């Protein structure tokens, strides 16, 4: 199969890659670009573990073709921290132990960050609905919601 050249911006960096027409953005990120933060859970858009930002919106990278990102802006979990300084959401998730196995965590952080950009002071219900597409099989969600709220409060005060 003929490989297709794609130019895109990932975490602010101009990036070029070659991929097959039917290859998902998730596979491109993980297998071609070495960005393994986004995880494959279901591969069918149900679990949210592969969440990334595409042109400012949170999407499942398993439901995006790599070739679709020509000229697009992609943000992944690898771009969330500022150098050695973790994003408040990342730090609070660790402080509050809002994760156990960690597979869902990159997707949840990306989705939570996109929520707080749109709504800096959400209710618990709004957080739960926004994150309904991010499945976690360990925590029971309670600590995740609390961590998002704690980080949100900190970010509002900053």
């Amino acid at each position: 199969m003929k490989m297709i050249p794609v130019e895109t911006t990932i975490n602010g960096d101009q990036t070029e890659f070659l991929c097959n027409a039917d290859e998902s953005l998730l596979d491109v990120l993980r297998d071609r670009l070495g960005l393994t933060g986004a995880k494959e859970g279901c591969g069918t858009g149900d679990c949210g573990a592969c969440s990334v930002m595409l042109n400012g919106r949170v999407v499942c990278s398993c439901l995006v073709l790599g070739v679709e990102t020509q000229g697009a802006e992609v943000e992944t979990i690898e771009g969330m921290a500022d150098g050695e300084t973790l994003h408040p959401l990342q730090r609070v998730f660790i402080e509050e132990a809002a994760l156990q196995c960690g597979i869902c965590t990159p997707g949840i952080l990306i989705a939570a960050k996109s929520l707080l950009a749109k709504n800096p002071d959400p209710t618990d219900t709004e957080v739960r609905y926004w994150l309904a597409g991010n499945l976690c099989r360990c925590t029971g969600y309670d600590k995740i919601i609390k961590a998002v709220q704690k980080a949100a409060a900190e970010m509002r005060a900053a």
Partner: protein
Amino acid sequence: MRYVKPESYEAASALLAAEDGIARILTGGTDVLVMLKAEMVEPDLMVDLKHLPGMHDIAAEDGGFRIGAAVSSAELGEHAALKAMWPGVVEGAELIGSTQVQNRATIVGNLCTASPAADSVPGLVTANAVAWLHGPHGTRDVPVVEIPVSPGKTMLAKGEFITSIYLPARPVGASDAYLRFIPRTEMDIAVSSAAVSLELDAGGTITAARVAIGAVAPTVRLVADAGAAIVGTKLDDDAIAALIAATEAACSPITDKRGTIEFRTKTAGVLAKRAAHIAYSRAGGKT
């Protein structure tokens, strides 16, 4: 699989018409890429249309709105004027999948997947929405209700695709609502659903009504008798009883793991009743 971004609508329909193998159209990708992954379909050609002019626009037109085929559910929900005029259409679109899915999924894709349980379709049907089709022999307008013909099948000819959906203008004192039954609170497929759109006169009497039901027949179904049952009323108990009876009579569901024939029929009637009350109240009526 070849991936092509045609330069124009004409080029897209020519490409689709000339393809001997399996062709699929890509806009939001939330259905087609799942089918690809599950190997339910192995397309030879994937035609990406979302870069074409008008595809991402929600444009005011003759008092209503024209919605491009690549507009996402999230974008519909963010459009205040559209949501004010057609809240039932928008709430149907906003029930499709998760936040992530709503950022990509489109009402045109939901329509063309032709699922009987498609959440955005009953609202479009009661809105009298019209799809604008582009094909190798030109363009044509087709009412949304006529697009799906059976589960997974549409009336679109080879080489044809939908470029936009038109939601017509509506008078003051008109509104709509959509409800579905699912056994959880989010991210599920409707067991049954109902949309109601109605218009009121200054005294609160219903002057026009359309009712559509989902997941209770091979396609989303417009129930003319159910709409007629509440015209001339203010949703009194007799009118509601007639609405429920007409809705139940129009159901021909299947029994599967999601629900039985009896359960689907019963809940469709209840949802039509509740959606009628919500639409009535949104339209300014007081019961």
